[in-house]
């Protein structure tokens, strides 16, 4: 297993398009790093540069202390799992898994041992003689994993490996991959656009947008302390509610006014706005759906951050209920307890947890306080 470093890595295509801009990342041994972001953000391109399938336009890629920019993919000691699995259709599961070792001219007994061990880990022992077309989606996915495992590579690269599976299987495989990481103790770089995968699997997450790294942090920190509006909106489901608000000082308190409503900020948030010179200007208020409450106790506790809303849609999810409403034509959602009986069309009173309010700069979109 190994460490991976990307130093000022850029990818520029001949037509001038910059897919990845100044990418810097130190991946420690045994880390599970997730690249996440919307389509076209450069996450797959970065992974393909690590794999050696794309040239690096500038910057350095270092694996285990050695610059590998010009090293052939096969000599980088990496293995990749593709979104489409890319199994060889004309070979059996066994041959698919043994192929790379055969090319290396590994002795037959060693190949057999490695393949059977990987098959045992992935529960593929009964399928070794089958061709990929005779396998289900989940089984193919496991074979693709197996093909990577038998090589015992320094780094595993996975490019949206679960996106072709149905929701249930995706959940199961997510757990399997997590177990596999613990078992193999391997360094993994994993690309996904699914933030549930990102949050549950990664030891650290790299959030990307338009080829630029937005934030690199642990899942919890990304959720609690997003560095800007994009990350705040991207991480978390349902996503964070946001609205443009006027920051005003009234009676010694800093309040945020929006859509005819107003909420008072707690001391540290008020101090941050004052310090940054935002009072008297516009800021973006953000609050996660789970930080909006409707029960009597919360309404009393957060009495200075209450607001009115008319329920547009009510979704009962069992353990919680999602309440959708509009604030000045912006769709908001609150995750409430199921004990609170709410019907569509009801006018209800809700309160924001003042310690969980995020405030962003309206122009730079950077976090002012969270």
């Amino acid at each position, binding site marked *: 297993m190994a460490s991976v470093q990307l130093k000022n890595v850029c990818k520029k295509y001949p037509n001038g398009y910059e897919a990845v801009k100044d990418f810097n990342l130190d991946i420690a041994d045994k880390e599970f790093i997730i690249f996440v972001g919307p389509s076209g953000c450069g996450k797959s391109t970065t992974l393909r540069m690590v794999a050696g399938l794309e040239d690096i336009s500038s910057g350095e890629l270092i694996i285990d202390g050695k610059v590998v920019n010009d090293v052939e993919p096969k000599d980088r000691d990496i293995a990749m799992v593709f979104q489409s699995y*890319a199994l*060889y259709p004309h070979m059996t599961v066994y041959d698919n898994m043994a192929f790379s070792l055969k090319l290396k001219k590994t002795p037959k007994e060693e190949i057999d041992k490695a393949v059977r061990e990987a098959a045992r880990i992935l529960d593929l022992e009964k399928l070794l003689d089958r061709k990929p077309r005779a396998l289900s989606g989940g089984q193919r996915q496991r074979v693709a994993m197996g093909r990577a495992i038998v090589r015992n590579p320094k780094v595993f690269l996975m490019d949206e490996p679960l996106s072709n599976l149905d929701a249930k299987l995706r959940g199961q495989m997510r757990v399997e991959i997590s177990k596999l990481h613990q078992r193999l103790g391997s360094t993994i770089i994993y690309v996904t656009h699914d933030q549930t995968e990102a949050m549950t699997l990664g030891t650290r997450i790299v959030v990307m947008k338009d080829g630029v790294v937005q934030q690199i942090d642990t899942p919890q920190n990304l959720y609690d302390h997003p560095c800007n509006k994009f990350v705040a909106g991207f991480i978390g489901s349902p996503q964070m509610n946001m609205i443009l608000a006027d920051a005003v000082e009234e009676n010694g308190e800093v309040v945020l006014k929006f859509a005819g409503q107003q909420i008072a900020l707690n001391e540290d948030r008020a101090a941050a706005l004052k310090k940054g010179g935002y009072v008297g200007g516009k800021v973006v208020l953000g609050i996660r759906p789970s930080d909006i409450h409707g029960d009597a106790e919360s309404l009393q506790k957060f009495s200075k951050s209450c607001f009115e809303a008319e329920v547009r849609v009510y979704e009962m999810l069992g353990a919680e209920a999602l309440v959708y409403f509009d604030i000045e034509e912006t769709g908001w959602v609150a995750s409430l307890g199921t004990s609170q009986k709410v019907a569509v069309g009801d006018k209800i009173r809700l309160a924001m947890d003042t310690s969980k309010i995020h405030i962003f700069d309206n122009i730079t979109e950077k976090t002012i306080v969270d």
Partner: protein
Amino acid sequence: MSSSLERSRKIRTAGIYAFFVIGCIVMIFPFVWMFLTSFKTVEESMMIPPDILPKSWQLKNFTDAMASLPFLALYKNTALMVFWRVVCAVVFSSMAGYAFAKLKFKGKNVLFSLVLIQMMLPSQIFITPQYQMLAKLGLTNTVFALVFPGIVSAFGTFFLRQAYLGIPDEIAEAAYLDGCNQWQTFVKVMAPLTKASMAALAVFTAVFAYGDLMWPLIVNTDLNMMTLSSGLATLRGQFSTNFPVMMAGSLLAMIPMVVLYLFFQKQFIEGVAMTGGK
């Protein structure tokens, strides 16, 4: 209601069958006529109105055909020509098709346009320059001369390029990461995936080569270096043609292809369906 529906369905089915039966008769009739004529006397073969069956079955036509043509040599030449044309077409078209579909190189589009242009031009245009080349090299009346125009196939290149385009790039990339070089990726991973297309091209090439008359007739004038098709053509006289002997010869010439068809029926049908040939 249901009985009238069933009746109309039956009528429609009967109509479809009738159409196919007529089609079959039209297709089979020339073969049946060739078979029957090969056993007739010359007079019987030219009678108007014709007799369907010969009065007495003349086996002599076959011995005459075999006496007038060196059939063993013709079989051998035809087999060699078909074999080498198929091998060359499949091997070179695979390599060129793979390059056009999956490799990045300068001038790819220009070169591929040339392939397309060659496909669009009638093959007769190339006969004169190809003949001149062979004549200057002193290679006429050889098996190589028979194979020569089939060494590279523009159609094959195009056809296999399409087959390679249908294979996702990720498979080649996976092979590349697994440690294959470009040649290994082609031979071990990509080419085996085009087996069905290669078989189709092989069948198509074989059928075309077997029936090719013009080129063998021009390039090999020595009777012992002719193919079945060009050899049979020599039986056609300037003033009269002994049709029963010619038909007997044609029947003999058909035997290898019929045997091949019986063995490779599935591939033949798939090949014709895939290449859009007929």
